[in-house]
């Protein structure tokens, strides 16, 4: 079982179990909100995005229309489109593999892949988490729908706490240097400020917009020829990008305020 030695596979399996178990609560809540077993299973098998699924049944159980339920679900799913763009570049599935890849493009598979540096590990993490969660999420949705009330509240087992811990654990290795920490804090605050004012799911999009804006406006191509002196690392924006951003003096001193232009060193 050599594959189990892969760090990405380990993370993928752990997050599959933690997330998959939470399917029990979806199954139980879905049936309680008035959907039947097959409608519940259709959401887990075909829609397959936890946040959107909870949003859908939340609107239905609150007495909302099918249209409102579908809209809430669609709004929450927008971020999966952003993940799809990232995973297409990172995991790069070819041909027919794009079809299953798209289906398992969710928070956890994206986070597991992005948490790895090595391209092979990124692919392993994506598929392990994506397929693992798909299988377990559906099994436990069925369990929840059939016997949810007998098992009690999944919160009593701390499964919502497991989700919090999993996302923090995926974020943690990226917080090297001042700049990543600052970005994380700003995005966390933006999220919390947005929660009371916009529909569920949208705060994550607000944070995504803030993060993308930071990335866009702090991007400074290194002038050709000066690169080795200013930026000692082969990957300009790898884990050491905190250091890259802390050299404004060097940039201005060497006349880096020329108009932005692509450098020869991208190598991508």
């Amino acid at each position: 079982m050599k594959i189990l030695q892969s760090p990405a596979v380990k993370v993928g399996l752990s997050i599959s179990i933690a997330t998959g178990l939470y399917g029990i609560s979806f199954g139980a809540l879905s049936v309680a909100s008035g959907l039947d077993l097959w409608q519940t299973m259709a959401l887990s098998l075909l829609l397959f995005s936890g946040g959107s699924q909870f949003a859908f049944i939340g609107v239905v159980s609150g007495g909302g229309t099918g249209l409102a339920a579908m809209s809430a679900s669609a709004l929450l799913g927008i971020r999966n489109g952003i993940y799809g763009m990232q995973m297409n570049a990172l995991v790069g599935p070819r041909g027919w593999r794009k079809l299953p890849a798209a289906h398992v493009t969710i928070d956890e598979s994206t986070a597991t892949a992005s948490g790895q540096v090595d391209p092979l590990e990124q692919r392993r993490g994506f598929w392990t988490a994506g397929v693992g969660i798909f299988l377990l999420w559906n099994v436990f949705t069925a369990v929840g729908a059939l016997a949810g009330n007998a098992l009690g509240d999944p919160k009593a087992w701390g499964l919502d706490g497991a989700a919090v811990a999993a996302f923090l654990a995926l974020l943690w290795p990226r917080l090297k240097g001042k700049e990543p920490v600052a970005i994380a804090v700003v995005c966390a605050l933006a999220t919390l400020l947005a929660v009371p004012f916009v529909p569920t799911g949208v705060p994550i999009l607000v944070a995504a917009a803030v993060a993308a804006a930071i990335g866009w406006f702090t991007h400074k191509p290194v002038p050709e020829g000066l690169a080795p002196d200013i930026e000692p690392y082969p990957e300009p924006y790898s884990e050491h990008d905190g250091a890259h951003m802390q050299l404004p003096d060097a940039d201005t001193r060497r006349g880096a305020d020329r108009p932005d232009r692509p450098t020869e060193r991208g190598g991508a």
Partner: protein
Amino acid sequence: MSLWFWILAACVISYATKFAGYLVPAKWMKNERMSRIAATLTIGLLASLTVVNAFSSGQQLTLDARVGALLAAAAALLLRAPFLVVVIAGAAAAALLRLAGWG
């Protein structure tokens, strides 16, 4: 039968949204600016997912047992615990706090 229609429509929209991302050519994402944005976006999304799961219930901000999960996970990470141990620490903290009657 009408609910079935909206369920299937939601499923189609969900898949179409995911698949649309894969239609964006990978090479658009592979330049320095997009690599930079991918890096900041990942940090931003993970930070956002962490606090949304820790502090929100629908549109309300709440302090409950999940705060304990966040702190326990942070402590485990400071001690360099492996991923699964961090997740179990989070679940155990939330479960124990609820057992003790909080959150």
